[in-house]
């Protein structure tokens, strides 16, 4: 019993109760199914707030640790080992926060096979939360792989016309990367006789040459997940075909699993390789920033535009992480959170209009602001937050990252930061062009067409406004007063960087 009452175990496996309950509910009572799923995700959110309450921010070490022997026979030492620290607390909260919001957004969007949808969604939440809390390589890998299954079905069953292609592409791409990671994590696990991450880090002493290869293998898995240029080609397909709730979770949380992986595993486990390869990571990040932004500008499908903007924004996160200094890493963690909020909100808004018009072509829209003023205003705020307007959340993250990247001795080249700053300007261009084309100017052809079918474009309804309000709160909160967020991550990051400096030679 003690096992189940650990806060971190509870927050991970609480949705499992929902899954079991949903199995036994009749599949034609759609509202009952929806509210049950909603209740369990809200419950999980509640537990995660309890975790936040118990979390002691100034302590840089793992907290609320739950550690039990799992496979400790025949010389193996695999543990059920969960813990939370400054690197993961924000991502935990982001996950438990976005899941109920996504479910709430499916009220009218998902009418078919509601029961299965909710079951897969709750299973996805277990996997995601587990990924952010697991402190044992083996356990992490289990959760990491586990998230693929529900996401495959969410895209494949409830997605758009090319959903099956997209679902399989998503699955195979990710598996290809995680295969290499599996190989790499078996090495230290067998050599070091433990899979526990803190133990492996503190024992140190992976030879530099081995570090290099293991770093690359882990990078394969994480870079595909992020996705970093040039491994990003699964993302636009998956995003475009996924149902709205799936896109929100995909952009909001699943991509963060990749960047989080870099932070949690690559940097502390292979410090020398991380320092040596930091310029290369920065190079790829910068290419990703510019390439993603350029492609986003060229898209005619608004969901694709947001997808490519994710490639660009996550480039910033990678750049910040491999600056390997406190500013860069804290900025990157905050930016992960920000990107989850802003891009999640963008996908939600796109989904809300798509539900009415069934098209995502930018050129058929126009003059929406006049017809749907509330929708237009919310969209403007979210769009500005996504392009990094000062006073909103995106700015804080990107600014801190650039600050870190400029002063980074690991990257040791201010050009990367300089070119990346260009990415912010490009973001302003594609976001504002999109906004102008869709919301300003003369009425688009879609309005006429809908009228012919006897349908008038309506503004956001009460449910949709309720969904958007918490997102807007975070957009302003982080933008105007980010201190509480930095306080959560700061101590752990300082500790991580200090450890880096003692274990590697290159950093002064």
């Amino acid at each position, binding site marked *: 019993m003690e096992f189940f009452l650990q806060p971190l175990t509870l927050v991970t496996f609480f949705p499992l109760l929902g899954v079991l309950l949903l199995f036994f509910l009749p599949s034609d009572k759609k509202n009952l199914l929806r509210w049950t799923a909603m209740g369990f995700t809200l419950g999980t959110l509640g537990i995660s707030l309890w975790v936040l309450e118990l979390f002691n921010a100034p302590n840089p070490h793992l907290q609320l640790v739950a550690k039990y022997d799992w496979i400790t026979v*025949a010389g193996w030492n695999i543990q059920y080992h969960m813990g939370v620290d400054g690197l993961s607390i924000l991502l935990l909260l982001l996950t438990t926060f976005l899941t109920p919001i996504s479910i709430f957004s499916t009220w009218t969007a998902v009418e078919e096979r509601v029961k299965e949808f909710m079951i897969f969604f709750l299973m996805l939440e277990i996997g995601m939360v587990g990924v952010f809390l697991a402190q044992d390589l083996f356990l992490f890998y289990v959760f990491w792989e586990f998230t693929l299954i529900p996401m495959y079905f969410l895209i494949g069953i409830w997605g758009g016309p090319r959903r099956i292609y997209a679902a399989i592409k998503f699955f195979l791409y990710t598996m290809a990367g995680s295969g*290499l990671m599996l*190989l790499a994590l078996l090495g230290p696990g*067998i050599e070091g006789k433990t899979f526990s991450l803190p133990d492996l880090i503190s024992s140190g002493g992976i030879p530099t040459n081995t570090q290099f290869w293991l770093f690359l293998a882990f990078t394969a898995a994480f870079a595909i997940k992020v996705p970093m240029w040039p491994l990003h080609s699964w993302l636009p397909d998956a995003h475009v075909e996924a149902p709205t709730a799936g896109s929100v979770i995909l952009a909001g949380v699943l991509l963060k699993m990749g960047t989080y992986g870099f932070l949690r595993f690559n940097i502390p486990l292979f410090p020398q390789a991380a320092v040596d390869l930091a310029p290369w990571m920065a190079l790829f990040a910068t290419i990703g920033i510019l390439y993603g932004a350029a492609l986003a500008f060229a898209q005619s499908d608004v969901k694709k535009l947001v997808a490519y903007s994710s490639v660009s924004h996550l480039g910033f996160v990678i750049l910040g992480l491999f600056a390997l200094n406190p500013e860069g890493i804290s900025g990157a963690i905050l930016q992960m959170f920000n990107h989850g909020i802003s891009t999640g909100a963008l996908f939600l808004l796109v989904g809300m209009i798509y539900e009415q018009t069934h098209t995502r072509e930018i050129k058929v829209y126009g003059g929406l602001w006049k017809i749907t003023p509330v929708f237009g205003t919310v969209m403007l705020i979210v769009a500005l937050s996504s392009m990094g307007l000062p006073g909103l959340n995106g700015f804080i993250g990107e600014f801190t990252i650039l600050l870190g990247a400029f002063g980074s001795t690991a990257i040791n080249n201010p050009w990367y930061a300089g070119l990346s700053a260009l990415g912010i300007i490009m973001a302003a261009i594609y976001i504002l062009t999109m906004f102008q084309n869709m919301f300003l100017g003369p009425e688009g052809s879609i309005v006429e067409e809908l009228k012919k079918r006897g349908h008038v474009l309506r503004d956001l309804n009460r449910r949709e406004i309720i969904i958007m309000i918490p997102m807007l709160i975070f957009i302003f909160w982080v933008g105007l007063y980010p201190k509480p967020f930095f306080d959560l991550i700061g101590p752990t990051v300082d500790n991580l960087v200090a450890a880096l400096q003692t274990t590697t030679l290159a950093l002064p």
Partner: protein
Amino acid sequence: MRYTSTMVMSILPEILLLILGIILLVIEPFWKGDKRRNAGKLTAAGLFVIMALSIYFGRPNESTMDEVVFGGMIRFDWLAFFFKMMFVFSAAVTALFMMDHEILGKRGESYIMLLAATLGMNLMAASADLVMLFLAIETASIPLYVLAGFTVADKKSTESGIKYLLFGAMTTAVMLYGFSLLFGFAGTTNLYALADQVVTGQLPLGVALGLFLLIVVGLGFKVAIVPFHFWAPDVYTGSPTPVVGFLSTASKAAGFAVLARLFIIGFEGNLFPLSDLAYSWASILAVLAAITMTLGNLVALKQTNMKRLLAYSSIAHSGYAMIGLVALTELGMTSLVFYLLAYILTNLAAFGTAIAFERVTGSTEIKDYAGLSRRSPGLAIIMLVAFLSLAGMPPFGGFVAKIFVFAAAVQVNMIWLAVIGILNSIIGLYYYLNVLKVIYLYRMEGEDEESHPIPLTRPYALGLVVLSVGILLVGTLIAPWFGFSNEAALNLFKF
């Protein structure tokens, strides 16, 4: 020869199997018509009881493991016991699956054959002598030849029965030739005595390994590794599906049990470090393992028939299991045993669903599975569990099993083999997902799945639920099963 209680205990499951068979023979003729299904019930229940009794009374312990039983013919150790329990379990589940088969289910003979084959497999896992081993292999094989061709009215079944027999006879002959040469060189048929001779140099290692190659032909046929796999797809397609389920799990595991014992004994004293010769020999087998999984997976990609797909997938799985074998370490053997445990549960579940589907629709084509998730959500979920476990996804048994065999390869620095294994599991994932795609993402023609339900009869439901729970337990609790596998594998290294 003096009687000891160990003698009875060491063959307790086999004695009970024989008693069950006799009871069945006596009672079965009195059941007519619909009552004939009782034969299946009796067999399945009997087998579960045998399992329980053996686990309660017939476990080996430290003192019995060193004891030479029946003049050294068999060993009474954990390795044998663990495998025996796996065979009895899969026979019980197979009996459940046979009950509602049109022909198998109505004939008492089919159950007798099943029991006889199980008895043979049990002895295979326990034999420590070439003569005993050969007898055991034949006892296991002949009933399976009969079962493969059991539906005489169906030409395909007859064909597959004959094919299986011819291939089997051929490869067994080669193996027997190997046995006789071994005896000729060493003058003994006892495996452990043979091993001693290898250690002392009386029997040159080169000769022993060369003769092993002949033996591998026979066992390679049983476990369907390339290039001895040609029979598998045809026999799997033609034979009655419940029989195929048994063939692809228990029979394969029995082959691996013998291989494991032969290997470790053959390499005794040469293990750490491996002599060059033994090492190059292990490398040849490693290459075979790599080819086996690659070929199995690549050909499986193209299959449109469920039974053929499962046939090639089971060839590929022999390849994965071989990784554990060729590592020739404690971890390798443990992972092999664990792999077989997970594989037996998973593949039986996969075949069980195929059987249940075939019984209602009469089809084994994959495209006919479209819309299954609406026609029968329960069956679809079990297929999901089985196929994801075959593909090696958590939290199912197949996932952990794969990780352990790859770990075994990494531990002995056969990184290339682990890489090939991982690449293969990605290929495998693709075609397993393709099946799940048809089941979950496609709709039936006409989109009126609700009016074409697929009812599950009680025995199927029971068997499938037991198997899925088993797959989940193996994949999540892990430690106890891994502990048993380790216990079994350790016996190989104790003499």
